[in-house]
């Protein structure tokens, strides 16, 4: 009798392994579990014969039965895990997507390329303790010319053909007017940039626009020298165009700076070797600069024995066209969404 029960238990254990191996789904597994371990299952069925055994034999048989149960439970757990893994893999396989189909877009607008570059320039200066100043676009002749050492009939006015409203009020031709307004308002030390629109009579073509933007900079402090002008331009160029950019200044003439300089940077396409982009020169002109003319400082009541300063101006559009490789300035004002969204 005892032997019989033990044999039965052994048989359940032996066959369970094979039967589990043939299981294909969670459902089958559940059914098998009930069949083996359930209330009316095979194991319970065998154990129900225990009552017929003599009491002294029951513990040993009971222990054997528990071992079989544990064994089967362990096997079922493992089988279940494997089954779940297989089923998950199958599910993931079925959920496979074509990742090359387009995304569900949330429409976000684009900054105008001029704003992108201007914001970078502003941030670069802000990080060096500058503030951003502004002044009117419709301006008095005084601020745009006279105070900048460009009296009426000065030939330098020729290079800046001007739109007028009255003999005295005009559309500013340079943001340098803001230099004067700034120095009227605040005393040195001064560290400002003044970006803004400027206007010059120019027929519209691929390289000319009657409206464009300049970024003016002004530093007035004690002990400012030409070295500082050069060093500051150098830092700005590096911040805007990368660490490998070199800056070059060479003599030029502006009535409101003395000495004056033209600012060029090494070509950011060829690094100065000379290419199609920089017309073989290796350098790209980006603006003008100089030490603030003492006549200008004195006009504004700044003591030139104590203070000196430098100023610079850059054309924004030129930077934008170069950076994005745009060959026609009109694109910037045309506002074709295909253009705006392509950058």
């Amino acid at each position: 009798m005892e032997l019989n029960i033990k044999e039965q238990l052994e048989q359940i254990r032996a066959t369970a392994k094979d039967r589990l191996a043939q299981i294909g789904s969670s459902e089958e597994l559940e059914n098998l579990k009930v069949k083996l371990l359930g209330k009316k299952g095979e194991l319970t069925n065998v154990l129900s014969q225990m009552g017929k055994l003599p009491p002294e034999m029951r513990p040993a048989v009971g222990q054997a039965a528990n071992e079989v149960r544990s064994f089967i439970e362990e096997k079922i757990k493992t089988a279940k895990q494997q089954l779940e893994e297989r089923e998950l893999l199958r599910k993931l396989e079925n959920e496979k997507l074509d990742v090359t189909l387009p995304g569900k877009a949330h429409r976000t607008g684009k900054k105008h390329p001029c704003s992108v570059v201007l914001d970078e320039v502003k941030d670069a200066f802000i990080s060096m303790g500058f503030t951003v100043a502004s002044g009117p676009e419709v301006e008095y002749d005084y601020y745009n010319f006279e105070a900048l050492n460009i009296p009426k009939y000065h030939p330098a006015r020729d290079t800046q053909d001007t739109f007028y409203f009255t003999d005295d009020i005009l559309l500013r031709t340079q943001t340098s007017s803001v230099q004067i307004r700034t120095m009227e308002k605040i005393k040195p030390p001064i560290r400002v940039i003044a970006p803004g629109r400027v206007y010059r009579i120019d027929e519209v073509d691929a390289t000319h626009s009657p409206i464009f933007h300049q970024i003016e900079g002004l530093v007035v402090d004690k002990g400012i020298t030409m070295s500082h002008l050069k060093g500051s331009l150098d830092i700005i160029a590096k911040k805007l165009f990368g660490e490998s950019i070199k800056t070059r200044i060479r003599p030029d003439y502006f009535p409101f700076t003395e000495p004056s300089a033209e600012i060029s940077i090494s070509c950011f396409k060829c690094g100065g070797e000379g290419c199609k982009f920089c017309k073989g020169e290796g350098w790209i002109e980006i603006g003008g600069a100089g030490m603030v003319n003492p006549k200008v400082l004195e006009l504004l009541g700044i003591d030139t024995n104590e203070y000196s300063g430098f100023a610079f101006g850059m054309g924004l559009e030129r930077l934008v066209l170069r950076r994005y490789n745009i060959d026609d300035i009109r694109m910037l004002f045309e506002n074709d969404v295909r253009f705006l969204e392509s950058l």
Partner: protein
Amino acid sequence: MNVPYRWLREYTDVNVEPKKFAHEMNMTGTETTGFTRVADTIKNVVVGLIEKIESHPNADKLVVCSVNIGKSENIRIVTAAKNMKEGDLVPVALDGSVLASGKEIRTGDLRGVTSYGMFCSVEELGLSVNDFPGSVADGLLILNNGACDFNGAPGDDICKALSLDDTVFIVDIVTNRPDCLSIIGVAREAACTFRRPFAVKKPSYTTGGGNVSDYLSVSVEDSQLCPRYMARVVKDIKIAPSPLWLVEKLRDCGVRAINNIVDITNYVMLEYGQPMHAFDYECVGGGKITVRRAAEGEKMNTLDGQERSLDSDTLVIADAVKPIAVAGVMGGENSEIKPETTTIVFESANFFAPSVRKTSKKLGLRTESSARFEKGLDPLLAKEALDRACELICMLGAGTVVDGTVDINNAPSVIKTVPFEYDWINAYLNITASKEEMTDILERLGMKVENGVITVPSFRSDIENKYDIAEEIAKFYGYDRIEPLFFKADVKSGGYTKEQKFEIRLGEALRAAGLDEIMTYSFVSPKGFDKIRLAQDAPERNALKIKNPLGEDTSIMRTTALPSMLEVLARNYNFRNPSAYLYEIATVYIKNADETKLPDEKKVICAGFYGEKGDFYTMKGIVESVLTAMNTKECEFVACTDNPSYHPGRAAKIVADGKTIGVFGQIHPLAAKNYGINDELYAAEIPFDALFEATAPEKTFTPLPKFPAVTRDLALICKDETTSGEIEKKIRALAGPCLEKIEIFDVYKGAQVAFGHKSIAYALVLRSDEKTLGESDIETIMTNIINGLEKDGISLRR
């Protein structure tokens, strides 16, 4: 300006490669934009002597020439040209030669006779008839034509024989350096740049008796406009072409050779930078020259054949009765040098720069002369130039200089001095130049340095103080030798202002709402006002007008940004872009009542779109998202029926605190049509200041709710004209503090509701701060709302 290297080297022995020359000059302030050399284009063209001309065996129009090209054997050239004879010297393009146009010439067969090259015309050498006296446009260039002094021999390279082998630099002179608008001026800069010697020979010549006062009397009526007037008379004039060396120099400078007298004035102008003029003495009525202002409306014909109407601001050179030149700008036709001229008056004067500039602008006449005078010339230069002109007269044998010079000199003779502060210069530039190096530079530039004082030569009108001296030192010491340093300064609180930060965030919010930024012109067409249907008396129509606009379309400063936006939308529409969603933070210019004052420049946020099935509520959503992002105070939207630019039933005003801060909606179909669009356009306009001022105080944290919320739907029936805004207001008032949120989830009009009515369905979120709302609490609130609405004729939809 063109600067021939050969001519420049008459004053200094600079002899570096052209590329190096250009680079170094650029670095010392004489902008040299490039250089050319004709000899680099023309190849293998030589002087040939036509020894024999025979008829062509097979062609009547061709002849066969035997040409001596300096070799042991003559070559054969077949030509259709007619203007040569045996014994003529002509340019011969040999086999494998290249002409100025880049055309290649090869040995070829011409009707059965081999031609070993081709004869050339002036044009084929890249020249014009002015560049070679006696030459013709339609025929060969006959080199020994008797009209000039050609002395090349057979076999000579044509580029050498015609001095086409020189390098010509193209320089751009800055406006404060009129002294450099001359070969001598540029040579001085070059000599200093390369630290080479520099010298200008003092002109010397002989005079032939007589006295200028027997011929001429001069009076200057306005000495402010004419600080100096010098004149000399030259008699026994023999008008002839200039010698080749002179013609070639003018050619290289881009100036046409005319005859010896005119050429001399041009030559001196190019060389010294002092414009000169020659009058035919016969035409100087009464032998009297008066430098005076023109009478109002006085007329004269200038050398270019144009009649000019003058006014009293114009300075003229007049004889006893009539003007014979516009001072400093252009001579008169009536006193022009003619082939039969026998006596001339050379004028070398100094005119007041602003006056010349003004006159030249007014007449729309810019000449080589006015371009120099208007920058302010040195009065001393007048004499040097006049002497040089007389020297050239003698050199060319063109006439006899009469003794005596007219010189009316009212120019103040001030000797400018500047203290030599070399320590300060070193500090200002942050360089370490020795006193000797600085002195050397200054002396090379024509300054005298003695006892700590710099004497500035009169031709350097630009130098006034130590800063100007510092600039000269910097230029020739080398900008590239200045060490770049960042300035040391106290820490400053830089950064953006509150308003600037607001604008940055505003841009972000507009882009987050799906709009692309645009950039449009600030001057616009006045037609835009009609296009957006503004009333005739609308204040916006009172815009600032530009006196000298590029055109009508860009003639006024905008007072509204809407036309700019609509134009851009229309442009995109015409480009067939399916949609455009745009914004601009635009400046508008509000005219000041006092026209001597500046306008008010204000920023306006302008948004606009079409396409992608966007409608009124799309724009409202955009506006709302921007208002939220900008933390604007609670806003109300009020129907806007009276803005002529917008659809009367589809526009709203944005109202914060009882103040209108903007408007948006569908553009009036008639306005859209004015922009050529038969589609729905939407726009929004919000003045920047209004939005900025409507900013709510910064929010602080309120504890998250402790008790759960319940949601109740409420479907209502109301009259068509009742707005959702009104109902919402009523519900809020009736519900009391437990109403946390109210949202519309459906609006219905149609068969299911009575005519003239609509159904609106709301979802209400109710919550109490004190307890979990029970069924009876909710019932009380809902009943209150329903009963309240019922009284106003808004009923529950059943």
